[in-house]
C-alpha cells in the first residue's frame, strides 16, 4: 500500500472517521477524562491494526519478488516502518482533531497540549514499529486478519498501557518532570521493537 493505492489510504481514514462518528452516536459528549482518553486510543489501536495490516498483505507476489531482488530485507523493513510511521502520525493527529471536535473537550480542564502531542507522536511511532513486524508475520499465514489481532494484541499491550497512562497524565496537565519517565519508556519500547524487527525480518523475507 503506497501512493499507488490511494483508495487504501482513504479507506483507513474513513475507518477512523466512521469509528469516531459511531463513538459520537453512542456517547454524544464525554465528560470523564479517563473514558475520553481510553476510547481515543482504542479507536487509534484498531485503525493502526487496519493500516499496518495492509502494508504486506496487499503486495502482489510479483512485486515481492521484485523488491526481493532489488533491495536488502533490512532496507525493505525500515522503509515499511518509516512509511507506516508517517501514515500513522498523520492519521493520529487528524483523528485527534476530529475526535475533540465531535466528542467535546469538556473533559479536558488543563491539558498539556505539548505533552499530549508528544504522546500522539510517540504512540504512532511505537504502534507502527511493533505492528509492522506482526503484519509481516501475519501476512504469510493463511487467515491473516484474525491472526494479526491474535498475535498483535498481547504484544502491543505493554506499549498501549504506558501510552494510555502517559496521555492521560498529559491531558490532566501533570508536570512534565513527573510524566517524562513514560515518554522515555515509550521511546525505549519503540527502539527495542525497531532493533528486533531489523534483526528478525530477513528470516521472514527469504522464501
Amino acid at each position, binding site marked *: 500500500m503506497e501512493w499507488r493505492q490511494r483508495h487504501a489510504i482513504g479507506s483507513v481514514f474513513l475507518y477512523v472517521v466512521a469509528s469516531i462518528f459511531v463513538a459520537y452516536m453512542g456517547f454524544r459528549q464525554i465528560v470523564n477524562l479517563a473514558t475520553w482518553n481510553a476510547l481515543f486510543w482504542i479507536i487509534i489501536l484498531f485503525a493502526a491494526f487496519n493500516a499496518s495490516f495492509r502494508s504486506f498483505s496487499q503486495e502482489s507476489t510479483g512485486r515481492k519478488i521484485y523488491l526481493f531482488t532489488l533491495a536488502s530485507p533490512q532496507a525493505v523493513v525500515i522503509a515499511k516502518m518509516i512509511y507506516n510511521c508517517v501514515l500513522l502520525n498523520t492519521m493520529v493527529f487528524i483523528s485527534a482533531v476530529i475526535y475533540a471536535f465531535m466528542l467535546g473537550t469538556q473533559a479536558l480542564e488543563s491539558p498539556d497540549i505539548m505533552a499530549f502531542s508528544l504522546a500522539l507522536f510517540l504512540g504512532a511511532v511505537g504502534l507502527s514499529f*511493533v505492528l509492522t*513486524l*506482526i503484519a509481516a*508475520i501475519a501476512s*504469510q*499465514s*493463511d*487467515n491473516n486478519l484474525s*491472526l494479526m489481532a*491474535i*498475535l498483535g*494484541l*498481547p*504484544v502491543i*499491550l*505493554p506499549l498501549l*498501557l*504506558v501510552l494510555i497512562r502517559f496521555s492521560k497524565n498529559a491531558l490532566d496537565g501533570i508536570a512534565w518532570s513527573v510524566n517524562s*519517565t513514560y515518554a522515555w*519508556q515509550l521511546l525505549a*519500547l519503540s527502539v*527495542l*521493537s525497531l532493533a*528486533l*524487527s531489523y534483526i*528478525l525480518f530477513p*528470516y*521472514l523475507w527469504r522464501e
Partner: protein
Amino acid sequence: MTHYWWKILSAILVVLAVVVGLKTPLSPGIPSTSPDRLNNGVTSVKITGYNTHFTEARESVSIWIENGDSRYCPYEVNVVSDTEIRATFSITGQIQEAFFDLYVANAIDGTLYLPSAFLQDGLEVVSDPNKTASCEISPQKGDESFNFPNQPILNETIRNLLYHVPSWFAMIFIMLISLIRSIQYLSGGNLVKDMGASAAAEVGLIFAFIGLATGSIWARFTWGAWWVNDPRLNGAAVAVLIYLAYFVLKSSVNDDAKAARLGAVYNIFAFVMMLVFVMVLPRMTDSLHPGVGGNPAFSQYDLDDNMRLVFYPAVLGWIGVSYWMYDIRERMSKLTFKKMALNE
C-alpha cells in the same frame, strides 16, 4: 543411571517440598484480637492465638502493649483455653500514637508480637504526652522447633510460597529454553530445533497455568479477590496470551518449514516484549505484588531460615522437573518426525 541422577533428584526434591511444605506447622502467633479498639478507661479484650499453648504455659503468660515510649500491662489476665486469653487494660489520658502493639509471652511459645493490634478510641493523641507509663515485662524464649513463620494476613497461606513462586521460576526457565531453540533454528538449525521450541513453550504454558491458579488462590485469601487489577498479574495474563497466540500461529500455517520460521520469529519478538511487561514495567509502577513497585520481595523481610531451607530445594526441584517434562516432550516430537519421514 548416571544420566538420570538429576531427574531422580528433582523428583525427590519436589515430593519433599510438597510434603514438608504441607506438614510443617506454623509457628505460634496472634492472628487477631477482639475488640480491636482500646477505650479511654477500662477495656476488656479477647486475644486469639494460633498454634499457641496458653493453658500449658499458664504460669508464665505475660502480656503487655506498647505505644510510643509507653508500655502498659493489663491488671487482669484470664487464660481461657490454649488459643484464647482475656485481658483487661486500663488506659487514660494522653498517648503518643494512635495504634498499640501487642506482645504476648509464655515459656513454650516465646514472645509473640502483633503490630498495630489495637486502635485508640477516645484517647488524646499528642506527639509529646505529659506522662509515660511503664511496667515490668518478662520476654521469653520459646521452644525451638522446625516451623514456618506466622505472618499477619498471610497466616497459613505462607506455604503457597513454595508452590507459586517456583512455578513461575520454572516457567521463565523453560521459556528461556524455547527462546534459545528458536534462535538456534533461525541461525541455520533444522526442524528438530523448532520442535524443541514448541515443546518448551507447551511445558512452559502448563507451569504458567499452575502459577496463575496458585496465585489466584493466594490473592483470594490475602487480598480478598480472585483477581485484582495489578501490573504483575496483567503481565502474567499477557504472557499466557502470547504463548497461546504462538500455538495458533503455528497451527494456522500448513507448510511445516514456514510455520517453524514464522513461529520462531514471533517467539523471539514476543519473549522480549513479555519480559518487558512482566519484569520491567511492574517495577516502575505501584503494585500489591511482593517484589514489585517498591514492595520488598519475600526474601528481604520475612523469608526466614526454615522457609529458605524448603524454598531453594523446591525451586531447584521444580526447574528440574520442568526440564524433564520438556525433555520427554521434545523426544516425543522427534520420534513423530522420524516416523513421518519413514512413512514418506
